[in-house]
């Protein structure tokens, strides 16, 4: 698989912060993790990019942080174009996760419902 087993939880945790659940569904409710994994299965370069980003996020202790601390760390990473130990740009990694979460979420009919996009035919 494109993402090692021990990084699955990191991926899920990060996507959950990209589009958190509230009264409406969040990224994980609409299977955005599966969307990303399928994307990585078809793109080895992107898979390597994710692998490095997730590995570093995991190493920074992301998985066990409470939600607001996760957001704080992701915000900090978003502002760093490089960082010790990271082979990929942390800001590019956060941006990619945000884009892919949106792509999974807002192409899903239940994602459409959250913004009021209704399809009549």
């Amino acid at each position, binding site marked *: 698989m494109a993402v090692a087993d021990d990084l699955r939880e990191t991926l899920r945790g990060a996507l959950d912060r990209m589009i958190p659940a509230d009264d409406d569904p969040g990224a994980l409710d609409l299977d955005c993790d599966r969307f990303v994994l399928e994307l990585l299965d078809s793109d080895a370069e992107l898979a390597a990019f994710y692998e490095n980003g997730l590995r570093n996020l995991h190493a920074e202790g992301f998985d066990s942080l409470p939600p607001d601390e996760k957001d704080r760390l992701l915000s900090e990473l978003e502002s760093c174009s490089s960082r010790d130990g990271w082979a990929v740009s942390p800001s590019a990694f956060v941006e990619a996760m945000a*884009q892919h*979460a949106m792509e999974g979420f*807002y192409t899903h009919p239940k994602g459409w419902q959250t*913004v*009021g*996009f*209704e*399809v*009549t*035919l």
Partner: protein
Amino acid sequence: MSHWDVVIAGAGAGGGVAAYVLAAAGKRVLLLDRGRWLDFATTGRDHLRNHRLATYGHNTGPELVGNPRVFVDVHGTEHVVAPNSSDYHHNASAVGGGTVVYGGQAWRFHPLDFRMASTYGSPSGSSLEDWPISYDDLAPYYELAEWLVGVAGGPPSSQMPERRGYPMPAHVLHRKGRALRAAAEKMGWETQSVPLLMNSVPWDGRAACSNCQQCVGFACPVDAKNGTQNTAIRRAIETGNCRVWDQAVASSLSFEAGRVTGLRVFRCGSWHEIKADAVVLACGAIETARLLLHSRTAQEPNGVGNNSDQVGRHLQGHYYPNAFGQTDEPLWDGIGPGPTTATLDFNHGNDGVIGGGLLADDFVMLPIIFAKWWRPPGAPAWGQANKDWMREGYRRSLMVTGPVHEIPSPDSRVELSSRVTDRFGIPVARLSGTTHPETVRTAEFMEARAKDWLRAAGVREVWSKPQALRLSAGQHQAGTCRMGVDPATSVVDPWGRVHGHENLVIADGSVHVTNGGFNPVLTIMALAWRSAERLVGVNVEFSPLSD
């Protein structure tokens, strides 16, 4: 292989109309397209793979593998790009071409659009020139195209000449359109409805538009969108004189003693020499130029029609200065297709800039496009705040946009790549250069007018993407085989014939001298009709009432 009266490469807007005119005139026509017959069932509604947003692919041809182009960025670096890259400057390949999935705005160019150089002067470094024909020359053919393919719309703005009404009334006016009309009136701006090549009522044996929300970029679920595949090409086939070969790739022209005798075509696993008395090229501004450049003879060693080094130059399309904002109350009513209200007050006569363009509302926006493109500067890109913005903002969004008449540059061009070939080993198109900087100034002027309109509609904060110098042929590619009377500065004559080749006609946006401040498809159709008529020497009329 049998001999045809005319073989046409490219079954899009121009090729489709040319096929109808030639077949109706009694000619035996072979119409080729490298794409397939497509419809709603075969193209679907994938919001990430379509002609509005092609993040991971698109819903027509060509295939993502085996059909690259080379794009040269503003720093001079070459990139090999696939068809779904914005740098590919793609035009859908299918029977019907882009008209299968287009938005179908059916504008005539403004009379002054044909006279840009004499109206404004030609800025240094640009190739801004007048057309060798006028609006009046094209007007009868605009009308024929409006009735053959089928336009719905209302009366023209006072900026445009009088004309016959359209076959169908305008589409439903939605709440956003009403708000924009009221705002325009407040400012003293004139508006008109947006003419669309879509059925507003049942017409031509097909249904009326269902006002769905997934229109531009997709095929129509009720076949109410009038492309050439369900109008002109269908009627061409019905004459009994036209055969369509889909999935047929034309590589180059064939010659005998310098005279065009047909096309070399790959189909069903092998190459064919198609012989014809005349050849019509309608592959779009990029592929038509490529085909000419790839067709070489002793007399024209740098490509057919290219002894003056004009083929492939002046590549242009449209800048779109979008302005965006949010109203206090939601104006969403979910009524598609979306474009209802336009102003033509700024196509010409704007102080300090060359030309201008139309402004109008737009197609219903897909949520993922809203998420990707319309986040205001400084707004959070993810997290609860982003989700709140999406939820709160989508139904309150209002946008004004429109194509800017480009000031072309001779250095914006199509060449053959010297190092990259397609799946047949044929050199691919290499795209380089940008528009002329004056286009950016005009786009900035139009962006300011678009923002005025939104503010008048009660939008407090407006934003847009900054205009930058770039190649802009991704939407409405044109200009690479420009029309003119002088072979030293043009490729085709005023009847679309390649200079020096009376039996070789170009019938797509390539021949546009400039591309108008309007969506160009109706102009492509009208010119194709006019040039096809001239090729056979008879007038072809059309009236749906005679069916």
